[in-house]
């Protein structure tokens, strides 16, 4: 039944309803605006949960595919026969599989939580929520797009709302942060666009029939062509000799792979490209950092997996060590710097870098366990960092600071929030039973199969994590408390609900990781087959 | 061809003669006439007064407007002449074409007229 509905589009575009209602509401009524926004954010969550319930991993998301031709241009060609027409085909192609489903769920959950957490926003609610919902559309679209151009469109759709959300509702240095965000990510997506354009023009060629040939950005077409390039070249040459040479050479493979690595590396962020995200973490409003740290960073990893690793397994395999080394650098660098930060938001920012390093490790392992670990780590870190920034936002609202030195002993005035903070910290450092552990463990386990020394070094980083997390969390919750913090209120209901929900999800994954691994089961099958085939042969 | 060259040789000769006459006359004159310049003689004439200010005063922009009109209508004749020469061999449509062309210019004239370019009210 559900597969008869265009469920993916419904999920993606359900926030549009909210946007329309918001546009019609008057500017001043903060209450109604907020209710509308939260109500709208529930919609995709419910739909995606329904999808999750209906999802059968054995079918690998096939029933839900939606495919509509978007652009189909028939070029006028200088030729004698009318038969060999050529077109550029762009499709609205949405699909879901084991890779996307967990991240989609993560998106809808975190987005709702962030909507709830946006009580901290004090001005211009209307446009805030409109941008917010647009951002959500973009994020969900990214995880479901099956056409590279469509992917890019959604990817960019997250960029613009973020610029506004940071630039208007951020803290003191918001404009600079927004700018830096824009330029860095702009460069990232530009590189991605270059890679996609090269992909389309070299591997996007498809012969549908004698008279219909086209270039397209279809993921399936590109994947098929890349998996068996010789067949594609033969077919194209048979049709018209000129086209044979269009197909990719080895060097083109490498060019595209490295471009993709850089593009998604900026988003992830991989070590030298990370500076922009620190600023965003400190300057953006808390609910936006929840989204940013919880989801946007994951888009980088997702992209790397879907386009970098799956399309170019050979290159990925050759560069596995490089990836792993980058991962380890991320872990250590993030952890060490997190350790010395005096500002809690920066601690969390560096910890994000560190955790993303673990994802990189999982990816670099290129085996099922590692990849699953990476995926779980993505979801888990999304939830944890969302939770942490939710708390940060609440703290800041009450105390006006996030400096570790100025906070302390808050456990006494707000026990509930401190407890949640502690739980989140534990999850973050990978306490068994909480989600963080599963991700880290599986990733490291995966990597251990191929690169033992690096794994050992990485574990060192994980230990460092425990140190800095505990140091900062304890500095906030325990120790001497300043006088002015005595009368602080504990979490309000609207804050408590998302906190509890997030904690619940963290615990759920920690105890019962199968909620994620089950749909993922077949997600990597083709990749792994290909890997073993290619690398073995 | 001979005729063609000869004709222009004549033209050249006329031009040369035109140049020679002033040159010769002025050279002869130089031998005959007295030459006793003094400062008084060399002042600019201004009705017997001491000259005031610059001689090359800024003149009315109206002169420029006339020059502009001249350019436009003179160019018109550039196109009118070949047309006129060949008129007897051309069809009715050419007449219409020229009528359009000229009427466009006439509209320009009317424009200038209306904008009071042709009314001379100073100098």
């Amino acid at each position, binding site marked *: 039944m559900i597969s008869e509905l265009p469920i993916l589009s419904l999920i993606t575009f359900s926030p549009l309803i909210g946007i329309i209602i918001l546009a019609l509401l008057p500017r001043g009524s903060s209450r109604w605006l907020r209710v509308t926004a939260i109500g709208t954010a529930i919609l995709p969550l419910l739909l995606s949960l329904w999808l999750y319930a209906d999802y059968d991993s054995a079918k690998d998301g096939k029933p839900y595919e939606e495919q509509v031709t978007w652009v189909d241009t028939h*070029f006028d060609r200088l030729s004698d026969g009318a038969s060999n027409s050529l077109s550029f085909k762009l499709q609205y192609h949405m699909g879901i599989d084991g890779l996307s489903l967990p991240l989609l769920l993560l998106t809808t959950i975190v987005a709702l939580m962030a909507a709830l957490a946006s009580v901290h926003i004090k001005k211009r609610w209307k446009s805030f929520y409109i941008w917010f919902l647009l951002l959500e559309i973009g994020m969900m679209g990214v995880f479901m797009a099956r056409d590279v151009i469509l992917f890019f469109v959604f990817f960019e759709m997250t960029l613009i709302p973020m610029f506004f959300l940071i630039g208007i509702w951020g803290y003191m240095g918001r404009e600079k942060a927004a700018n830096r965000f824009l330029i860095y990510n702009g460069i990232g997506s530009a590189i991605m666009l270059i890679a996609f354009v090269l992909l389309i023009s070299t591997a996007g060629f498809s012969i549908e029939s004698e008279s219909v040939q086209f270039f397209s950005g279809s993921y399936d077409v590109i994947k098929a062509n890349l998996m068996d390039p010789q067949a594609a070249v033969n077919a194209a040459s048979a049709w018209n000799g000129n086209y044979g040479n269009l197909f990719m050479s080895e060097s083109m493979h490498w060019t595209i792979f490295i471009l993709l690595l850089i593009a998604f590396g900026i988003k992830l962020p991989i070590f030298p490209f990370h500076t922009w995200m620190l600023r965003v973490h400190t300057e953006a409003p808390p609910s936006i950092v929840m989204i940013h740290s919880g989801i946007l960073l994951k888009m980088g990893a997702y992209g790397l997996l879907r386009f970098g690793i799956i399309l170019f397994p050979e290159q990925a395999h050759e560069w596995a060590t490089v990836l792993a080394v980058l991962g380890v650098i991320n872990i250590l660098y993030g952890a060490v710097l997190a350790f010395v930060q005096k500002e809690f938001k920066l601690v969390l920012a560096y910890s994000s870098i560190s955790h993303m390093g673990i994802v990189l490790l999982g990816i670099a392992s290129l085996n099922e366990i590692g990849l699953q670990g990476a995926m779980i780590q993505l979801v888990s870190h999304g939830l944890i960092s969302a939770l942490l920034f939710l708390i940060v936002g609440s703290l800041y609202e009450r105390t006006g600071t996030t400096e570790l030195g100025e906070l302390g002993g808050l456990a006494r005035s707000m026990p509930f929030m401190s407890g949640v903070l502690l739980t989140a910290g534990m999850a973050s450092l990978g306490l068994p039973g909480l989600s963080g552990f599963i991700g880290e463990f599986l990733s490291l386990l995966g990597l251990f199969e191929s690169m033992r020394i690096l794994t050992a070094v990485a574990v060192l980083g994980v230990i460092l994590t425990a140190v800095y997390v505990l140091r900062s969390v304890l500095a906030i919750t325990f120790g001497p408390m300043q006088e002015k913090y005595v009368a602080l209120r504990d979490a309000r209901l609207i804050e408590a609900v998302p906190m509890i929900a997030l904690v619940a999800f963290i615990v759920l994954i920690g105890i019962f990781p199968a909620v994620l691994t089950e749909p993922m089961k077949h997600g990597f099958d083709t990749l792994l087959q290909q890997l073993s085939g290619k690398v073995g042969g | 061809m001979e005729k063609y060259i000869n004709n222009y040789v004549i033209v050249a000769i006329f031009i040369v003669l035109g140049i020679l006459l002033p040159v010769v006359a002025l050279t002869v004159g130089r031998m005959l006439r007295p030459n006793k310049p003094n400062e008084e003689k060399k002042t600019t004439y201004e009705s017997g007064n001491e000259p005031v200010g610059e001689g090359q005063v800024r003149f009315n922009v109206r002169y420029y407007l006339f020059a502009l009109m001249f350019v436009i209508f003179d160019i018109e004749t550039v196109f009118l002449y070949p047309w006129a020469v060949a008129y007897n061999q051309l069809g009715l449509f050419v007449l219409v074409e020229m009528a359009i062309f000229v009427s466009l210019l006439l509209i320009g004239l009317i424009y200038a007229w209306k904008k009071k370019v042709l009314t001379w009210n100073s100098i």
Partner: protein
Amino acid sequence: MQVVQQQLQPFTWSDAAYLAPEWILIVVAIALVILDLAMPRRMNRTVIGWLTLGGLLTSLGFVIWRLIDMKGAPLPEGVNAQLGNTIRLFGDSYRIDGFSSLMKIIFLAAAVLIVLISIGTVRSKEIPNKGEFYYLLLPAVVGAMVMVSSSDLITLYVGLELLSITTYILVGMRKYIVQSAEAAFKYVVTGGISSALLLFGISYFYGASGSTNLGQIGMKAAQAGDLTPLMYVGFFFVLAGFGIKIAAAPFHLWAADVYQGAPTPISAFLGVISKAAALAVLFRIVQNVGLLGSYTKPIADDVNLAVLIMAAAAMIAGTTAALRQHNMKRLLALSGVANAGYLLVPVGLGLSGLHTYVGEFIFYLVVYLFMNIGAFAVLSVISKAAGHEELKGFGGLYYRAPWTAVATIVFVLSLAGLPITGGFFGKLFILLGAAQAQNYWIVPIMVVTSVISYYFYFGIIRQMFMRSTGDDQEIAVPGTTGIVIWLSAAAVVALGVMPGAVMDFVYKYFSIAADMLFLYL
């Protein structure tokens, strides 16, 4: 396939009917001149603006009607469908074909929008002769139309000068503002140099082929191998001449000054119509050599490379120079330089055996039309309210005119090439074309300059949403200008959502063989 040596046919009344769009504009212009003269001095000249608009719309109607009629007309016996349906007048010196009609639609649409902006925002205080302002636009548009329709270099030159000379005057229309006269003078000088360069190049084309007909030049030059050096010289100068007209680097230095001094609608006119006309003609000339290229490959390759280098230079120079601008018009001028670069890419890709990139070109041109004119419309509203054209005039626009601010976001996103606007697809199509033609080096230049341009485009957004001028008075948007703003914004979004429609339209009416290579069977 061959270029037919057509005898000079007498001009007939049906030929005149083919020229209806041009006639109408000229007749309306003349009628308006007379009307303006006859009208009492104190009467408001806005009515002339409306009549101008009417003339443009009528002409547009005729162009579209002709385009459809031409496609539907039965072909003569034995004529290849790819080659037929071109109307050739005046001994094949004037062509009405798919490409020229499409371009004419663009010019006329742009002119309509520009007139609408003017009706809303032109002030008599700045431009005392409002009537002249309106009716001078018409011959300028006719000039552009003649340019794209001409298949003979003489006709081309006449059209070009008709366009140029009228725009020289239009730039200087702000009579009491020194900048305006200065801009006009600079434009005259650069324009004059540009026509001289162009003509010099053309004279070499003529020398190398003995003809001024584009099709003939292509054919003859392909046969006469030893005259290739002449063709090279010709191309060098023609490229430079058009380079100035389209403000492509390194010939772009005039653009910022001239745009700044000109009345805002005229800046839009220069940015869209003048540029598009020159680009379209350049496209034709370069493509024509594509045919030549099939015989003597190097010249086509070299010319294409030169165009691409010019394009790259324009993108880089335009974007980097725009980073420093605080004046909105200068910024848009330099953004126009960069856009000229993007538009030059499909021109320079050549006939790479796959297809021409005319669809990409026209699509981006349409997008550019709407986003640029939209931006100028917003600017004209704001400069009217603020009294200046500095970037800071946009400060706090969100509070003063929220919907206009929203529309401006659309234009800015499109200019920056971000989805889901037409600008994104325009650039994407061009990128894909470049990659298909295996000109990989131009791809990163295009993309990276786009990203650099975010900095100044988003600077506008920063002003609108994150700053404030302290003046919270609402800005009244004049009705007609508002129409332009919303029409353009809607068009930009529509092009971003359904880009295929325009591309289909273009390729339905366009034929390489007939429109670009002037072949005829």
